[in-house]
């Protein structure tokens, strides 16, 4: 498989993660605890996607892992604060 095809495949997986996460989130409207759980699972999947993507690309470093984790943390904070307000 060519590099470009790999890239497409990776981004299809990424779109699937956020798409499934968003759909589940809407299905659970009115149930904040489960919605938050879905948000956390989607975020962890995103971090996992980032790690696998960079590992396959050959540029995985601790700095990159931390960056994905921090972006994920910010996302979870967004959900927690808005749900808690």
């Amino acid at each position: 498989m060519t590099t470009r095809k790999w890239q497409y495949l990776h981004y299809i997986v990424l779109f699937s993660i956020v798409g499934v996460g968003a759909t589940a989130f809407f299905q659970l409207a009115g149930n904040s605890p489960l919605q938050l759980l879905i948000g956390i699972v989607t975020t962890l999947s995103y971090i996992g996607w980032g790690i696998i993507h960079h590992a396959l690309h050959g540029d995985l470093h601790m700095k990159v892992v931390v960056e994905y984790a921090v972006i994920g943390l910010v996302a979870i904070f967004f959900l927690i604060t808005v749900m808690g307000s």
Partner: protein
Amino acid sequence: MRDILVHLFVPLHTNNHRAKVLHVDSLMFLAVLYMGFYLVTGWVRTEYPDVLGYATDIRVEQLVALVNAKRAEHSLGPLTLNSELSQAAAGKAQDMLAKNYWAHTSPDGKVPWDFILGAGYQYSVAGENLAKNFSDSNGVITAWMNSSSHRDNLLKPGYRDIGFAVVNGVLNGEETTLVVQMFGAPKAVAAVVQKPIVKVAQAEEPTVVTTSVPATGLVEIPKEASAIAVAETNNSPATSGYYAATREPLIDRSALTKNVTYILGGLIIAVLLLDAWIVRRRRIVRIAGHNLAHALFVLTILYLVSQIVPGVVL
């Protein structure tokens, strides 16, 4: 000043070719600042609810109209607002605030049917839905419709009457707007549409509460459901304080939090895209995460945030 802004938002040799805002330490700083904002506004809300609280405007007539509209969409007959069920709902709301609980069963074991029978409504089938902290009537009904168990109550063909209580109060030390919804069918009516009384206990799903009348010595009082007008609840002294709940603080905390979230999330997305564009144009090679993937992810989270409505149902 210009140098500082460039250092913060544009990848240069001074920031190791990545906008300083996107560095891990900067993102952590922003995250801590954001959580600090959340905690401070939470404290202000508790201490000064008139200044920074939550705005709400929920009215019983709107709730009844919305419920009946949903039932009409499913070819079901309308429910009539019943003063006894409204009185039962008001009693339940009063009990929750007085005893500080948020549940279908009170700490001393009182169930919804106790309130319904206590108000003088002799039922063969009854149900209860609860909601708190919603900003408007539509949000309450939407949340109930999105929960299968509450939806089952709203769309149950066997019900004939409905009662509501909407009230502001303090629950667990927090300013709250409670909505209590009671359903029922009087014995005489339900006997036609129901099979012999069966007790349905739903321990797994306490949000749907449907049961039969217990074998008590109470005398059944037949009533014509259609004869009970909406205005009757308006005039009932027992429920007059439970007909609407409005609150308009100086600043709505929920809207403020959402707006701050949009600004911070939007800033992160904008800097990610700017950084990606400059790095691509200058052909800079560096070790970092994918800006476009980050931007897509944060954008998705912001969209989810925009769909969150305040409030909890039970």
